[in-house]
């Protein structure tokens, strides 16, 4: 058959047209939906830029060194700072990290190395995932019941316990993931040399997975630094330095940036509200810096 015969044979047969013209409703719908999702995605970026703009616009002009060295202002006072809140945040988050990192990493070693398919491991993984969804305020309620009521005072360690609960699942899940990425052949080689499983874990798996574990820890620390709700009734707040005259007041109420923002945002005084914005700017920069460092560590390790 030549071309003409084929054309003749199919004359009058109605083929669906394959070309895509906007006159076809199907194509039109497709284009409209594509535009729609594009626009939704762009709209979703607006809040982030709005938040960042407001932080720089309202908090930026307030930035000065006094903010980092002075104590919070009282009602009608001008100036002042939140130096004690920055120190407090650092102390509380360090306590939380000191609890959550060993527990989390050792749990992850068990999950990735010693019993990846055991019943214990699946139960543990499930509990870790459940803990990820634990509302932060309930971590606070728990720490209040378990630490504040037991020791009789609002304190930095109580806040640390609350935050460690929120850090733990992130650390467990990311550390396990990182350890699973360690090539099996490396471990097999070590076992072939006569290493015990513990030596494999310490000398091969942990060092190789270190960047991944650090990334998880960074993410957890960044999240904990921004948490407010669990600190409201565990570390509470304080208008004074935690370390003064060479003495530490760890077992006293402790200030934190997040609670500072919460307390000052509701005040009727212009100076206090400006301070809340400045503190927010500092907190967001801090959190973003920790986050980005974490991302850098992991991407550096991947490209190696």
């Amino acid at each position, binding site marked *: 058959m030549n071309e003409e015969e084929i054309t003749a044979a199919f004359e009058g047969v109605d083929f669906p047209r394959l070309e895509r013209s906007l006159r076809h409703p199907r194509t039109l719908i497709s284009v409209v939906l594509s535009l729609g999702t594009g626009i*939704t995605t762009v709209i979703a970026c607006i809040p982030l830029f709005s938040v960042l703009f407001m932080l720089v616009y309202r908090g930026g002009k307030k930035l000065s060194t006094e903010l980092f060295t002075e104590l919070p202002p009282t009602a009608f006072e001008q100036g002042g700072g939140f130096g004690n809140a920055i120190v407090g945040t650092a102390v509380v988050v360090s306590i939380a990290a000191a609890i959550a990192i060993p527990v989390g990493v050792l749990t992850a070693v068990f999950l990735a190395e010693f*019993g990846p398919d055991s019943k214990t491991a699946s139960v*543990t993984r499930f509990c870790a995932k459940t803990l990820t969804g634990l509302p932060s305020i309930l971590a606070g309620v728990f720490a209040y019941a378990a630490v504040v009521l037991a020791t009789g005072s609002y304190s930095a360690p109580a806040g640390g316990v609350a935050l460690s609960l929120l850090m733990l699942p992130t650390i467990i899940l990311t550390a396990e993931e990182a350890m699973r990425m360690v090539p099996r052949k490396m471990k097999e080689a070590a076992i072939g040399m006569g290493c015990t499983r513990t030596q494999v874990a310490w000398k091969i798996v942990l060092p190789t997975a270190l960047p991944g574990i650090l990334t998880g820890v960074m993410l957890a620390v960044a999240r904990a630094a921004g*948490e407010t709700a669990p600190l409201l009734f565990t570390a509470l707040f304080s208008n004074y330095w935690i370390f003064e005259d060479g003495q530490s007041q760890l077992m006293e109420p402790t200030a934190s940036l997040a609670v500072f923002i919460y307390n000052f945002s509701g005040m009727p005084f212009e100076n206090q509200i400006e301070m809340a914005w400045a503190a927010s700017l500092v907190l*967001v920069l801090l959190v973003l810096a920790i986050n980005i460092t974490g991302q850098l560590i992991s991407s550096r390790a991947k490209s190696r």
Partner: protein
Amino acid sequence: MSTTLPNAANRPDESVISTPPSKFDIVIDRGFRGLTGFFAWSTVSLVFFIVYEVGGKAMPAIKTHGLSFLTTQTWDLQNEQFGVLPEIWGTLYSSILALMIGGFFGISIAIFLTQDFLPRKVEWVFKNIVELLAAIPSVVYGLWGIFVVIPTLRPSAIWLHENLGWIPFFGTSLSGPGMLPAALVLAIMVLPTVSAISRDSLSNVPGKLKEAAVGLGATRWEAIFGVILPTAAKGIFGALVLGFGRALGETMALAMLVGNSNQMSISLFSPGNTLAALLANHFPEAGEKEEPVLMYAALVLLGITLLVNICGAFVLSHTTRRAAGGQK
């Protein structure tokens, strides 16, 4: 290396190579394995310990108030009348609103960023912007909500109330904090969760399915609706459930934006309260009378969120197991 032949002096002692782990190594090994196992179990027992602690401290309130705590509306410290029905309503209402907004945006972003609409680099930029939303602390969103969202919404809310006030959703006017600003900010906060998990499940759909659909003449969106979304449906559902769980427990933004008012209303503009916001606002100053009651409220919140999160984790683990099985 070829130049230096190993001589007897620096050749390793053969007995060292072939020595099996010493008794000491084995003891250390056993001990360390036991230790990690202990930590794994301690993580598990932590969940039960949380329930036990909160439940134990709530016991006195459970005994005196019983189930009427869940069905009455007063919060009267003087007469010791307590009920959290408005808070339960507010928690669910704000979370559902937030999930409708955040879910819609989250899923369309996930589709937009996985179906090759954009060059890889641009996809990466958008993906990171959406993830940065999760890095902003909740208290900062609260502050932003007070000074940006509420003033922005107020004119249109007042217009809606004056002109369409007969619709129950617009039944009251927005004076300041209220359900809608709270739900909007909440939506921004669940958006990263929903979009990240949906994106995972969408990118796990085998490429051949889509190619087959396109080969049969489907347009891009016919392929998405007919093939890709149904395949990824379980994962997306899991994402929505987890997002819902996140919204239920979110505290600070709501404590600052929802109005902290003990009332139930379907109006989007009326102030309300949520369980988490109730705890945040009352706990720091709670006396002996109020404390067990708040613990009871915390237990209710714990129950709701654990249930929702376990459902979400279950759905997701089910889908990933099936996907992994399919790949083999």
